[in-house]
């Protein structure tokens, strides 16, 4: 079924009788060519592009809970390609370009909205670093602007310009950055994949991997063994748990990242504002809630919930930047489990097991990467060769000393 304004009107006038399930609930088949473990954004996108762009069939996505229930459903919805390093920037720019055509591609309004993102500058050193980054972005075709204090003030006059502990001196802006309705991304990919024959199997948890002579044969699940020629794992915070079934230890730790939304408000913030000096970033959803976040809690966790100190820390950053929001109320907090890698950058790679592929280590950058991650992972699985924009995302970069460390924090995942 194709979605359109006409269809919405026609259905509205006929009592919404004609809408069809957005996806089926198939029983798992005994064998597939491709199994994608993880029905989050990356897994669903991978299945979608495998079917649509790489002409593959007999694909299943196995999800232990409900579709889109992982980090794609619990993030702060920001898209951007304002990265610094050569290993990252082409990939994120590829992703942003895919976002720009996504809704028409999968016929679902995910509300991709490029209202711009800005990273505030508070010191000369920060300006130097952002100048380096902005130039790298432009050289990679991503576009960037360096704003001075007055330009920032013209956009957001109510930020703290006059009484700030760390005065705003400007910003690095990417006008093409923005936000996307996060759940809709999962649903749009799921629908698109389902329409192309992909079996989306919910409540199906992988409990083991069958590996014979160094080759993957399939996965054990709570719904029985399911055979596969190739298995791709895209399970974010659960990466270490799932890959342990293949006897692997990963350069990844799982950490909880909290995110926050305020009560609904009439429009205040148009784009995305990042306040690095205060560990705070914010945007406003189309529904009116301020959506904001800050640092991870900082300790290994699989608990999908965080603690008060980070909530306070984020609120302090928010109030320092925006003294007008004192009476705006925090409505809801939530925690997602981040697959924090050792250099802050992801891995999309083969493994020592033939036919077993891995996609993870997204830290808290996974949402914006969703389209390119799916595409590049599909590319890798279908062609057994990395996509040109994802060649650096190898496991062995740590052994070879080719880290992609945007923040320069070294091998400590909770600092990325």
């Amino acid at each position: 079924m194709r979605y359109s304004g006409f269809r919405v009107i026609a259905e509205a006038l006929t009592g919404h009788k004609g809408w069809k399930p957005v996806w089926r609930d198939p029983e798992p088949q005994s064998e597939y060519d491709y199994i994608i473990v993880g029905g989050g954004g990356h897994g669903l996108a991978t299945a979608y592009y495998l079917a649509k762009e790489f002409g593959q069939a007999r694909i299943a996505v196995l999800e232990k809970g409900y579709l889109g229930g992982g980090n794609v459903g619990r993030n702060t919805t920001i898209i951007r390609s304002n990265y610094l390093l050569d290993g990252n920037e082409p990939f994120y720019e590829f992703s942003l370009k895919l976002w720009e055509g996504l809704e028409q591609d999968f016929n679902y309004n995910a509300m991709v909205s490029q209202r711009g993102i800005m990273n505030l500058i508070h010191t000369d050193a920060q300006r130097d670093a952002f100048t380096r980054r902005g130039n790298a972005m432009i050289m990679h075709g991503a576009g960037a602007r360096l704003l001075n204090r007055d330009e920032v003030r013209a956009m957001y006059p109510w930020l703290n310009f006059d009484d700030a502990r760390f005065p705003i001196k400007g910003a690095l802006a990417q006008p093409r950055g923005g936000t996307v309705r996060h759940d809709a991304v999962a649903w749009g990919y799921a629908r698109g994949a389902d329409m192309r024959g992909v079996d989306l199997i919910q409540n199906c948890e992988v409990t083991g991997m069958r590996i014979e002579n160094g080759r993957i044969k399939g996965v054990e699940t709570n719904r029985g063994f399911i055979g596969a020629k190739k298995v791709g794992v895209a399970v974010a915070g659960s990466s270490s748990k799932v890959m342990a079934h293949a006897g692997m230890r990963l350069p990844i730790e799982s950490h909880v990242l909290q995110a926050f939304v305020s009560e609904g408000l009439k429009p205040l913030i148009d784009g995305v504002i990042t306040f690095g000096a205060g560990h705070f970033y914010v945007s406003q959803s189309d529904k009116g809630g301020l959506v904001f976040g800050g640092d991870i809690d900082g300790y290994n966790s699989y608990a999908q919930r965080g603690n008060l100190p980070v909530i306070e820390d984020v609120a302090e950053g928010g109030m320092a930047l925006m003294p007008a929001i004192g009476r705006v109320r925090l409505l809801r907090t939530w925690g997602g489990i981040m697959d924090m890698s050792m250099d802050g950058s992801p891995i999309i790679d083969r493994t020592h097991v033939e036919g077993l592929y891995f996609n993870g280590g997204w830290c808290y950058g996974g949402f914006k990467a969703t389209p390119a991650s799916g595409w590049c992972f599909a590319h890798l699985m279908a062609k057994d060769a990395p996509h040109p924009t994802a060649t650096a995302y190898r496991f062995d970069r740590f052994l070879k000393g080719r880290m992609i460390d945007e923040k320069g924090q070294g091998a400590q995942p909770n600092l990325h």
Partner: protein
Amino acid sequence: MTQSHRISGGQVDRTKTVRFTFDGIPYQGHPGDTLASALLANGVRLMGRSFKYHRPRGPISSGSEEPNALVELRTGGRQEPNTRATVVELFEGLDARSQNRWPSLRFDAMGINDRFSTFFAAGFYYKTFMWPKSFWEKIYEPIIRRAAGLGSVTRQEDPDEYDKGFLHCDLLVIGAGPAGLMAALTAGRAGKRVILADEDFRLGGRLNAETHAVGQASGADWAVAAVAELAAMPNVRLMTRTTVMGAFDHGIYGAVERVSDHLPVPAKGKPRQVLWRIYAGKAILAGGATERPIAFENNDRPGVMLAGALRAYANRWGVKAGERVAVFTNNDDGLRTATDLMARGVDVVAVIDSREGGELIPGVRHLRGAEVIDSSGKLGLKTITVRQSNGKTEDIRVDALGVSGGWNPNVNVHSHHRSRPVYDAGIAAFVPGEDGPPGLSVTGAAAGVLSTHGALRTGRDAAMAALGLTGAAPDLPEAEDAPVRVSPLWFVHHGKGRAWIDQQNDVTVKDVKLAHKENFTSVEHLKRYTTLGMATDQGKTGNVLGLAVMAELTGRSIPETGTTIYRPPYTPVAMGTLAGRSRGKEFKPFRLTPSHHWAKEQGAVFVEVGNWLRTQWVPKAGETEWRQSVDREVLATRKSVGICDVTTLGKIDIQGTDAGEFLNRVYANTFSTLAVGKCRYGLMLREDGIVFDDGTTARMGENEYVMTTTTANAVTVFRHLEFCRQVLWPEMDVQLISTTEAWAQFSVAGPNARKLLEKVVDQDISDASFPYMGAANITVCGGLRARLFRISFSGELAYEIAVPTRYGDALLREMLARGAEFDPIVYGTEALGVMRIEKGHVAGGELNGQSTALNMGLGKMVSKKKDSIGMVLSQREGMVQEDGYRLVGVKPVDPKAALTAGSHFLEKGAAAVAANDGGWLTSKVYSPHLGCDIALGYLKGGDKKIGQRMRIVNLLAGLDTEVEIISPHMFDPEGERLRG
């Protein structure tokens, strides 16, 4: 205006009158009123508009679960959106306004949405607004954004203060209804430290809203007595107006005390609210229960309320919500509303009971097996349509309807650790499940024990159990102990109209049906697709209803369908409260240098460096532009002598018989060979081989070293050294302590540095007795202990001299005075930067956490003859590439051309694309010595490009400049000056 709907009784103080306005119209109420009770007393029931359809709405509840009656309070910087009228304590002069309407609450133009509601079904926006592509951002989305949201936020700073604090107790009791009061009494009488917190301004919970007797008194009076007893106990802290907003790990609870919200403005210096972090040995959740509605068509009109709220307004506030009232219930509790209202003389015209059996209430028209199927009344309820058991329908004229679908235990806080509530068919509701927060037990209605006696009993027993009390249990007063008799009824099957489930977000039974049709059947999908439960009330009244409807549609049981869980906060919390005092200039503490007061006297310009304020430059009279000051400071230093406060550099005292070996292992270069009285530049790596920090370390004695770190890394280096000392090499005899603030340290640099210092130093510091890289404990000015290091960051003959911090200001003044003949100047961080870049020393821009010693041209410093942190991994193939980044110096071919740090290197003629990117400029300054901009940069293969010409481009500013690649040691490369 008279209080037309005020009736007798209740707990408001009728001797006093409180004046307030709503949408500009003046009204009166009494102390003890909420805004909602006072408006209802004045016959006002239209208080808001819904989110999507802009339907007229009045309050359905009398508490914090309220989805509808949201108003904007106060003005200016205190403007406060989305405030529940049901919990706002009335105060003199309160100014409330309705929101999400234009031009007025009664005539809202956006009410048109309601007429076209069929087009706005759940998730309609996912299916349209895609063509043409550009219209989403240009047309559709701006319209949606303008329409969205409820209240509006001020652009002014919130003038109120907020505070935070910490409390400790043996037992935290959350909720002061019968269960909570009994728990607190039990624990308090046993001498335990108790905190009893309740969100209400009057303790007692439902006891204040009911007419039940407790013991010999009314429930409300029993509560007053219990509170009085507790208040007299020094070991009990009663916290009214305090909401426990979240249960966090290991018995830490967050609580918000609304100190001043019941006042027009906070008293001077007093906070508006306080965020308490409560460390509770044990906790008891006695948060009561929330009544839920039954969905029927047009069940959202002002006047349709929860039955329990209707009687709360009558019993507690002496307010009748209508002249002609009906009750629609599926359980016995709903019947109490009819009897209570009748007892207060309110005209109850009908009781519509969905059950066939049960007791009949005498003296009222009691229809059994009947249902309310519809209602009418544009801005408020006028009639309900009732379908009787025989199928006949009848319109009944009423202006208030109390609806009771049963009570949902307030499990929220118990599920903050993701414990899933479980369904209890006996009360047709979810009760707390397994794996709640350790140490938290649940009692009373929150645990599904819905009688007063049950609440008192479980409250007492929970306190005994939680605290392990072994004495005799306190006696319980007599109280009602009626069984729960409820026949689940979630929504009334009838017709094609809309029956609301989530009133604020306008989620109706139809939306749930659509979600079901489209296979969004898991509760999480239902919530996300329809936005059920995502409004400001977080679904306190609607969630269970929604999933029950879904259960019915899918044919699954309610337990199979499951429920979503609640997350903190219990009710929304003001950002100001969570931030406390950390805002404005107080966001982070300041650190001031020993020369701060002197510099301030001189009109110095300061710069934030972490939490430090450092002198950036010190303008002299007549200097209008910062470069004039900086150039002067640099030239004066290089010509004669300059002084700079370098106290901010981290200083770590390292002692012990293994201190030398310890330094060998934490520095990439060798330290064990350093002689007493000498210092050495040290390069510290992270274990991954990247440069971590640098600085000089001096050997002050046989087993005594003083390490300096960069300002930025002082704390992390110290932490790292402690890690090495305690965790990696505990066999070593090493003691560490930070002395950063203990010593005021000044760099004295320039050809006349020694001459100036000789004026204050008591000892001989001639080149022979105190050569380059010397270090010594000395005295100054006739005996004051001091330290002297002959080190240079500027390339000049330079020293760093340190005295105990309290003498720092005096030493600076003394040096300037005694050395006046050398025209000494004080220079700031800008001049410091100029001189270090002229000299090619790495600092912030180069020490970026991504660079190796090799990148910095310091590869030879990494000794492979000894083990040190980072030595092995610094040798990985990707980090030792021949053509990798190398530090270079850069100057423009045209001396007038400007350079910008962050610009990138390109070969001549190369396009500005990533494939041609040669590296970037890390730091840039104007060198008055060389008469042009100069920079340091990382350039691929840079060590082989010295002398070549390249371009640097700054595409952000459209700059493209031809430069010469030069040695990073741009000034006095042979180092003759610093040895002078």
